[in-house]
């Protein structure tokens, strides 16, 4: 099962300050869509709106062509097909395995299937031997890997990554990026990656978009985007003329 994501004209303001002005883009299954831009540009807000943590002031979001349902049961069902990894994860009280299997338990997966899939997810992020460690005792990098495993073990159709390797050391970044690649290749899911790291975007993305002043300034396939950007602002951004 796959699902594409279509955002049109999204608007969001906080306390009179407009964060998202008119954001539109589309991500198809199998793609890794990177959204880059300066900090505070609204990238996190965008993802939170997609995953129903916040409500946009205007615009629409379509999942597999349909807007989100209004009745709670259907909305919950839709939500369970999405996953989000935030920048610094929150670990629940318990072991790494407990955290990873949380989403499975929510979806009433139990017994040997739960154990198997949990072990697989932990192995995918190189933490098979830390399965029973207390999650609160994990390092920042390990915790983020657990959070990633927790997000993908449920086989989401749309995976949202919000600066998910920011502040991590290179070994952890490598492991997580490899896991993203593996996930995308094996499931063909729709992946949206918000990052301010241009190099990461180059490494992981199939398409890239620049979010500036609340709008998508330009988007395109990764090669063209970096080698031959069309918009002057894009050119300035990828050349490093912006501080970000």
């Amino acid at each position, binding site marked *: 099962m796959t699902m594409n994501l279509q955002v049109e004209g999204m608007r969001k303001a906080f306390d009179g300050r407009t964060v998202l002005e008119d954001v539109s883009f589309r991500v198809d299954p199998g793609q890794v869509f990177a959204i880059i831009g300066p900090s505070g540009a609204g990238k996190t807000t965008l993802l939170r709106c997609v*995953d*129903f*943590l916040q409500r946009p002031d205007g615009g629409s979001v379509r999942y597999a062509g349909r807007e989100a349902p209004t009745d709670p049961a259907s909305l*919950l069902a839709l*939500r*369970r097909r*999405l*996953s*989000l990894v*935030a920048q610094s*994860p*929150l*670990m*629940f*009280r*318990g072991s790494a395995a407990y955290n990873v299997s*949380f*989403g499975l338990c*929510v*979806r009433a997966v139990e017994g040997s299937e739960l154990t198997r899939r949990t072990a697989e997810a932990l192995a995918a992020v190189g933490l098979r031997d830390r399965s029973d460690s*207390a*999650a*609160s005792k994990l390092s920042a990098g390990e915790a983020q890997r657990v959070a990633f495993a*927790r*997000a993908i073990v*449920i086989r989401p159709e749309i995976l949202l990554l919000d600066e998910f390797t920011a502040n991590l050391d290179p070994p952890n970044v490598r492991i997580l990026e490899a896991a993203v690649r593996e996930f995308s290749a094996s499931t063909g899911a729709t992946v949206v990656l918000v990052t301010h790291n241009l190099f990461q975007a180059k490494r992981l993305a199939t398409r890239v978009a620049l979010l500036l002043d609340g709008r998508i300034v330009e988007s395109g396939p990764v090669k063209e985007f970096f080698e031959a950007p069309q918009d002057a602002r894009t050119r300035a951004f990828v050349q490093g003329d912006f501080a970000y």
Partner: protein
Amino acid sequence: MLTLAGDIAAITLLSVFISGTSTLVATAIAVPLGVTLGLREVGSQRLLRNILFTLYGLPPVLAGLLVFLLLSRAGPLGSLGLLFTPLGMVFAQVVVVTPIILGVTMSVVATVERRVKETALVLGADRRQLSITVLREAAAGILTAVMVGFGRAISEVGAVFIVGGHIETRTQVLTTTIITDIQQAEFGHATLLGVILLVIAGVVYSLLYRLQERTLP
């Protein structure tokens, strides 16, 4: 009118029974309610909180008086025949202890990191699963609420005196006996019972602390 060791044991047992039962009942009512209310981020919560803080300050003697009037044969629940009985005393203490456990639970749940709720929601938790997750994360704080509640119950004297009547061998507990001992100048006996009270509280608290340690991350 010194009582023998067996009598002291009986009095102690009844004290523990009444305070333990009322704390448990109050927990069963207050914790689910507290988690539910604590999770709601509604403006009307201010009204609720005002009501709750007033109930916090409900003097146990007043609670005792109200329960007395309720359970008396001349009162609305008189046909139950619960006045001057241990069950009536449990009822009175439940009235005293529930607002306390409720308030602390609500407070603990409201201050559970917002990210706990968000993470659970993002992972697809429904309301029931969210409540249980929050409860798990707030478990240490909730056990504190229970400890505070029990402390209030075991040391309470006004309500149990009024509703229980301090009937020897029937509704006689440690705290009411300390009062009557003092009235009869049996200070040594009163002190002994006071020490027993402290020991009980200490034992119960250490058990709850041990439980609480297991709930820390």
